C-alpha cells in the first residue's frame, strides 16, 4: 500500500477561492508518492515559534495530475482552513504528509461501485471520477452528488458534465424538484446496468447515516458500504 509516512514540503502552485467558502489549493509536493483515488493529505502550518496546527483534507486530483489538488471548506473559526482561505498565496510553502488512508476508502476500478458524496464529502469521489474518466472506466463508477445548491456543491459543473447524478436539496435542478436522493433514484444507480459490488459514502455524520440507510434499502449489502464521515455528533 502506498503510504508516505514522512513530512515533506509542498509549494503552492495555484489557489482559487470561487465563492469564499471553498478554496481549491493545488500543490507541488516534493518527493511525492502517488496516491490512490480516495486518499487524503495532512496539511501542517507552522508559526515562527514552532507552534503547529494540522488537518486532513481529501485529494481531489487524479493520480496522474502533476499537482495534488485539495478542496478546502472554510469552517467557522477554522484555524487551518481560515489560513488557507485568508492568507495562502502561490509560492507559499506548506508541510504536508501523505497520501494517507490506506486502501479502505479508495477506488481504482477493481469493482463496480456507487459513490455517494454530500457537500464537501464529494471531494475524494471527484478523484475517483477523474481517475475513472482518464482510464476509460467511467462505466464502473456511478456517482451520486448531494448538495444544498449548485453553488454550494464543490465541482458541481464537472460532476454534471461527467454524468454524475446530482441531487440538490434546496433548489430545483432542471425538472428535478429540490429533495435528497429518493430511494428509487439510488436503487437505479445501485442496480443498473449491473448491480454495484461496492458503495462509498462520504459526508457529514447525518449525511452518512442517511446515505447508508438509503443504500441498504436499495439492496447494497452493509458489509460492502465503506464510509468516511466527518463533523460533530451530539
Amino acid at each position, binding site marked *: *500500500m502506498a*503510504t508516505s*509516512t*514522512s*513530512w515533506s*514540503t509542498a509549494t503552492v502552485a495555484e489557489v482559487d477561492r470561487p465563492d469564499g467558502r471553498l478554496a481549491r489549493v493545488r500543490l507541488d509536493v516534493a518527493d511525492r508518492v502517488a496516491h490512490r483515488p480516495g486518499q487524503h493529505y495532512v496539511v*501542517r*502550518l*507552522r*508559526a*515562527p515559534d514552532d*507552534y*503547529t*496546527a*494540522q*488537518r*486532513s483534507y481529501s485529494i481531489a486530483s487524479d493520480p496522474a495530475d502533476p499537482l495534488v489538488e485539495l478542496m478546502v471548506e472554510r469552517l467557522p473559526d477554522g*484555524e487551518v482552513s*481560515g*489560513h488557507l482561505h485568508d*492568507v495562502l*498565496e502561490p509560492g*507559499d*510553502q*506548506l*508541510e504536508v*504528509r501523505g497520501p*494517507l*488512508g*490506506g*486502501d*479502505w*476508502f479508495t477506488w481504482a476500478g477493481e469493482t463496480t461501485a456507487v459513490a455517494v458524496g454530500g457537500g464537501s464529502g464529494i471531494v475524494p469521489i471527484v478523484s475517483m471520477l477523474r481517475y475513472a474518466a482518464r482510464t476509460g472506466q467511467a462505466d464502473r463508477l456511478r456517482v451520486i452528488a448531494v448538495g444544498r445548491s449548485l453553488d454550494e456543491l464543490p465541482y458541481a459543473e464537472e460532476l454534471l458534465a461527467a454524468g454524475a447524478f446530482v441531487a440538490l436539496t434546496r433548489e430545483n435542478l432542471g425538472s428535478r424538484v429540490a429533495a435528497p436522493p429518493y430511494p428509487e433514484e439510488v436503487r437505479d444507480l445501485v442496480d443498473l446496468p449491473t448491480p454495484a459490488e461496492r458503495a462509498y*459514502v462520504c459526508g457529514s*455524520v447525518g449525511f*452518512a*447515516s442517511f446515505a*447508508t440507510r438509503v443504500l*441498504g434499502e436499495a439492496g447494497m449489502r*452493509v*458489509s460492502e*458500504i*465503506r*464510509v*468516511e*464521515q*466527518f*463533523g*460533530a*455528533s*451530539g
Partner: protein
Amino acid sequence: MPVTRGFTGKRRGEAAGRSDRLPPGQYDVGREWPTLTAEATPHLDPEHWSITVDGLVEKPVTWSWRELHALPGDAYFGDIHCVTTWSRFDVTFAGVSVDVLLEAAGPLPEAAYVMAHSTTGYTTNLPIADLTGGKAWVVWEADGKPLSDEHGGPVRLLVPHLYFWKSAKWVTRLELMARDRPGFWEQNGYHDRGDPWLEQRYQGDP
C-alpha cells in the same frame, strides 16, 4: 521544516491554559464530539449483544448486557484524543474496568497483546499492558447518557491514554494473543500503538 508565511496560530490562546493537557498537534474541540467511522453505523440491540474475552486465557468468558452490568462498575473522567487532531476535555464514561474482565478469564503468561473486535468487523490491536492497571474500560455511558449508536453504543472499548481509534466502537470480543498483529487502521497506515503524547499517528512515527 519551513515556517508557514503569515501563520501565527489563532487557537493558541484558548489552548494556553490547558497546554499541559493538550498533546502535540491537537486542538480543543470544546463540547462537540466528532465521529469518524469506517463502516456503516450499526444499531445493536443490547438484549442480543454480548462480549467475550478469549484467545490465550485459562477459560473464555462471555457476558450478556445484563451480566456485564452486574459486575462492579467503574468510571473514567478525563480527556480523549483523536488522531484527526481534536481533543475533548472532561468527558465522563461509565462502564466496567477491563481489569475485571481479564481477571475473570485469566490471561495465560504468554498473552502479550489484545485484538479488540467489533460487530462490524473492525479490529484494533493493543499491548495487554495498555489495557490493564486501571487504564482501560468497556463503557456504555458517556456524560451520563447511554452511548449513542454513532459513538459505539451500546458498548465500546475506552483506552483514553491512546488515540481514540484504539477505543473500538461496538466492541464484542477481546482476543488475547502472544504476538502483535495489526488491526484495521493499523493495516491502513496508522501506528501500532498510538500514544498521543508521542504523536504516534502513522506507521513510521516514533
